[in-house]
């Protein structure tokens, strides 16, 4: 209205113009860090002096690094013991919410989701405070209940510490999973349920044999994105264990090992190769993700 332009000529260039800020920023802050990490995995660099080319040395070292394998196993184990209960809880809750007229369903669901939004670093420290020491809140409760063996030194136990990280992850994610599963369920044609009812199937049977198979793509999507996130776990185990992953490296995840090698020990070259290793594993998982999602496309 105010300005007149020869838009016919400008149209194509306007498209480029609109996406230029994104791509300029992406080149510098997205692509460069990836390529530089790759480059640095062939170097030795302490952060101060010039980087020195060392060939495949970092790669040879990581293949024999027991701590690296341990950190992968820790990340995977913590993920697994969070994911299975998380799925079971979410499937159960989704069934409750779908087949019953639950009063305040949206309220319940929103509150279950709340822990997912809250700063993970703060949550790690909060749980550390609630459990750490003979006089912690949790020990106080257990002692007053006359629980045998209380008070406990919770953070001396590898099994407990690893389990607690899994629990926190469960606590942060089951609400999210409920929301996604329920969105999957609403895409199912209601006539299928009517047919099941005519055939005399009860609620439980309908859910187990009709609903769950039909939302399988959603479940696969959840499983894979969760695993990719789980392999990168950092905030909660880092703040829960004061950054070192103890007791006896029980909650040292790969991302924590990467951080410690780079920013504590100043082995940036070796930290870069840990990145590459982690990236490789995540890429393999993502490839599976693509296959699974392709199948989802075929089904719809």
């Amino acid at each position, binding site marked *: 209205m105010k300005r007149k332009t020869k838009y016919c000529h400008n149209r194509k260039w306007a498209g480029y113009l609109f996406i230029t800020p994104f791509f300029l920023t992406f080149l510098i802050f997205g692509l460069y860090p990836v390529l*530089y990490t790759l480059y640095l995995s062939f170097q030795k660099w302490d952060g101060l002096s010039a980087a020195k080319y060392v060939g495949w040395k970092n790669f040879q070292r990581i293949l024999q690094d027991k701590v690296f394998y341990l950190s992968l196993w820790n990340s995977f184990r913590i993920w697994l013991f969070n994911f299975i209960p998380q799925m079971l809880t979410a499937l159960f*809750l989704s069934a409750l919410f779908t087949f019953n007229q639950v009063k305040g369903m949206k309220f319940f669901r929103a509150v279950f*989701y709340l822990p997912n939004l809250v700063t993970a670093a703060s949550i790690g420290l909060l749980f550390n405070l609630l459990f750490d020491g003979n006089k912690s809140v949790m020990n106080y409760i257990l002692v007053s209940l006359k629980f045998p063996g209380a008070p406990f030194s919770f953070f001396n136990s590898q099994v407990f510490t690893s389990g607690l990280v899994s629990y926190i992850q469960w606590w942060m994610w089951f609400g999210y999973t409920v929301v996604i599963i329920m969105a999957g369920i609403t895409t199912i044609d209601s006539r299928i349920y009517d047919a099941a009812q005519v055939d005399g199937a009860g609620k439980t049977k309908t859910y187990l044999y009709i609903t769950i198979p039909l939302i399988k793509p959603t479940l696969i999507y959840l499983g894979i994105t969760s695993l990719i996130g789980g392999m990168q776990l950092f905030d909660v185990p880092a703040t829960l264990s004061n950054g070192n992953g103890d007791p006896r490296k029980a909650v040292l995840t790969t991302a924590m090992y990467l951080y410690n090698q780079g920013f504590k020990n100043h082995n940036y070259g070796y930290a870069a190769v840990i990145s590459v290793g982690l990236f490789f594993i995540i890429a393999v998982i993502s490839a599976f993700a693509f296959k699974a999602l392709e199948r989802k496309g075929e089904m719809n």
Partner: protein
Amino acid sequence: MNKKPTFSLALMYGFLIILLIVSLVPFYLMIINGTHNSFDIVTKLNLLPGYSLKDNYLTMQSHVNIWRGFVNSLCITIPYTLLSGYFGAMTAFGFAKYNFYGKKFLFGIVMASMMIPTQVTLIGFYHLNLRLGLLNSYWPFIIPGLANATTVFFLRAIVVQSISDNMLEAARIEGCSEGYIFNHIVLPCIMPGVFTMSIFNFVASWNNYIGPLIIMTRNEMYTMPVMIAMIKGLYLSNYGAMYLAIAISVIPIILVFCFFSKYIINGLTVGVDK
């Protein structure tokens, strides 16, 4: 006939209420313990607010300047959220409504960039900011707002759905420039979508821990999560003050949640359902 449903209903609500308590108890203990002194916290279980809020606050302030961290976090989070909303919409509009050479390939890059794991680029990101002289500044966390792939991806779908080509043609015949069309016609139309994405961008930026942990080496540049994470080493034994500091760090998120939970829950499923 009536008895069994009542029983199972009670069981169901009982289960839901237990999960509700499980979800909220850590936050409740955090707030309550923030109002008690250390002695109370280690000698009894506190379920009601105490009287030491002010003392805890003064202790906390004398050890660490928490409001400095708060301001640092806001100085990053607000510009980042605004930039990723505006430029996310702009990039989305460019992809949704214009035809140009290499469009498919470029959008493929946007999709692929969503899949680059942040932890994996950490070392390169540090080196980049070292070279640019941006360590201990807000910029490393503000500028990437210009290239938020997730926002572009979701907003593109919304532009395709809600902006008709006829509308754009009509505006062009009226003589509007392409930039004017974006700012005054497209952006207002897709504002609800931009708003939903902005909530998620705000939360993600506020919660970012590992990024500021490597870039901010000077105390006065620490953001909230970095400050909270190192607090245990500082306070030694003053539990009340620590709980209070944690509470202050998560209150903005809980406020966002209280006001916008409906948007948030709906926004979650944008990517999943078809």
